[in-house]
């Protein structure tokens, strides 16, 4: 019998308010399994504001603090400062924010938290749009995606601009640890969350988070779509620790990206030319990532002095 690598204790409870098939709900569940009960979670305005359930209930077995949408980085800096001041040494401070709250409006406080090397884990769950407000495009929405603010019509063909490279931005800050995680690969997810748990300094986890209503697919397809995202190279799994990049799901050949795109209504308007463009872009990114993982080159610009140890 295979050894179970995923801890059994549950710190997220049933009765939460997520939609069926919600990957952000899975992400929180797996994350807390890895981090354990000595955790504090700070959550901005996002789907998880609602998922955690209204006053006087909570879906979490750990304390949770609400913060405004753009301030998660600052909130976890404050929590860590207070924990240090109060002598709480064995505590994991976690920010758990959506892609809009991180890569758009929250980018400044994220950058501040990384730069001042706050000892905390920042998790961005990426459902690739402002989902809690009803599927408006974010900087993290992929090119071509239908959203309510990038509709499909005579003069609009979904989102015109490519997805913002949040991990590239994060890596420019030289974090202790940064990784991509996908709840469709729970063992890899938990291993990375545990690795983040055991390190100190600023850590960033980019979590792929399919959304049935926002991406327009049937809710039982979440795990399959998540697997396709990684296996087509759309969302490769890798980690960067102390400047070394390692791909954690290696693939000799990528599945055609059309399999991923055709499974979702938000890409239904893409024609073969569009899909060929996406395929070429995904291949370029994948080749670049593999080259980075093969080389000893650090994924951030050289500096006169090494990064401050955490």
């Amino acid at each position, binding site marked *: 019998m295979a050894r179970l690598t995923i801890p059994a204790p549950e*710190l997220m*409870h049933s009765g939460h308010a997520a939609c069926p098939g919600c990957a952000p709900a899975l992400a929180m569940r797996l994350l807390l399994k890895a981090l354990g*009960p*000595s955790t*504090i979670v*700070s959550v901005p305005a996002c789907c998880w*504001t*609602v998922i*955690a359930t*209204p*006053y*006087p209930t*909570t879906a*979490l*077995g*750990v*304390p*949770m*603090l*609400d*913060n*405004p949408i*753009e*301030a998660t*980085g*600052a*909130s*976890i*800096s*404050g*929590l860590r*400062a*207070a*924990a*240090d*001041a*109060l002598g*709480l040494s064995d*505590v994991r401070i976690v920010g758990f924010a959506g892609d809009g709250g991180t890569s758009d409006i929250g980018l*400044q*406080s994220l*950058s*501040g938290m990384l*730069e*001042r090397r706050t000892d905390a884990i920042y998790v961005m769950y990426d459902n690739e749009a402002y989902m809690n407000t009803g599927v408006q495009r974010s900087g993290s929405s992929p090119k071509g995606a239908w959203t309510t603010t990038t509709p499909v019509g005579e003069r609009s063909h979904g989102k015109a601009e490519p997805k913002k490279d949040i991990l590239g931005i994060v890596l420019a800050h030289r974090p202790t640890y940064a990784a991509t995680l996908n709840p469709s690969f729970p063992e890899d997810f938990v291993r990375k969350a545990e690795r983040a748990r055991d390190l100190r300094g600023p850590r960033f986890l980019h979590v792929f988070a399919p959304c049935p209503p926002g991406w327009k697919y049937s809710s039982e397809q979440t795990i399959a779509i998540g697997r396709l995202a990684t296996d087509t190279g759309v969302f490769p799994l890798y980690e960067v620790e102390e400047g070394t990049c390692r791909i954690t799901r290696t693939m000799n050949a990528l599945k055609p990206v059309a399999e991923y795109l055709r499974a979702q209504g938000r890409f239904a308007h893409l024609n073969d030319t569009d899909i060929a463009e996406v395929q070429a872009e995904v291949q370029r990114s994948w080749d670049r990532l593999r080259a980075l993982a093969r080389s000893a080159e650090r994924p951030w610009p050289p500096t006169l002095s090494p990064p401050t140890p955490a």
Partner: protein
Amino acid sequence: MTRLVLSGNSAQSYAARLARVQVVAAYPITPQTSIVEKLADFVADGELPAQYVKVESEHSALQVCVSAAALGARTYTATSSQGLLLMHELLHWASGLRAPIVMGVVNRAVAPPWNIGADHTDTIAQRDTGWVQFYAESNQEVLDTVLQAYRLAEDLAVRLPVMVNEDAFYLSHTVEPVDVPDPATVDAFLPPRTPRAVLELGVGARVGSFTGPDHYVEFRRQVARGLESVLPTLTEIEVDYARRTGRDHGGPLPTYRVDDADAVLVTMGTMTTTARKVVDELRTQGRKVGLAKLRVFRPFPAEAVRALGATADRIGVVDRSYTFAGLGAAATEVRSALYGRTGAPTVASFLAGVGGRDVTPQIVHRMFDALLSEPGTGPAWMDLEAEREVTVRG
């Protein structure tokens, strides 16, 4: 007790050190900078064992304090003008989460045009955020009020954030002798914070949360109750502070020579000192004038204003801000407090000192002259330069 020559900004820093703040977060803005520089020195020299978080904006500065307070820490930050405006969203978070933060604010004009002079528009624009607001007249009052502010903010009946405001340059960068109490005296007056309803490790509870109309109203009412507890609690705190230090700043609306006064001027901040001197001059001439200093603007001391209105026939209120309303902000509050009272005095609204313009004795004389002759309904701009008014045009 030690007597030191301190600026208003240094008085803030010394008070924060005496209060043994545990987390400081700050972002620099003129003329607040020397407050947070001094605190950085205290931390660097080991004189203040606090966590000092150097943030990338005022918005984050206040978020750091809110989150640190949510875990039970005693926190301090300071800002001014544009920085306070950027904090606006977090001001509501702080009061709504009942975070007993104390913040020093150096009152400075709001752009455009850029201006770093004394002006209360920055804090007056935050009057509806659930924060207690003190306006200081002297550097001694700054130091004493910061210490009182922690006791007030952390009082279990209050549990609200407090801002201690001082006029840019007139206090922030002007030095005067300040009595600094001994740490033991302050420790006895201000024990460590007793946290309530904060994050607790291992406890699945949510601080903040969301609700519909079923609970939201009661949450707001609780904040209102906290504000309602401020003035009675402040009275107790000031008695205790006076017992330990010999200094009493006279509550939310200390008065000067108002007993038989026909006309009383209500002032805020440093212009009070000038006005007090003018009152003495006019009294020598036999004119019955008095002064009331609006030391606490939020919660507004309506009862104290009504007591004042029971004796004075005419009240003039000076606002060092312009809020695009019919009257000055403090004048509106004073008139509202007196509305419908039998025999209520006339309330005139004066604007002066906006953007750091000096409020001279001559200008105060003009206000009393207007008040004693025929006070208009206002607001009256008391210190406009007529010639410039003609040339500053579009």
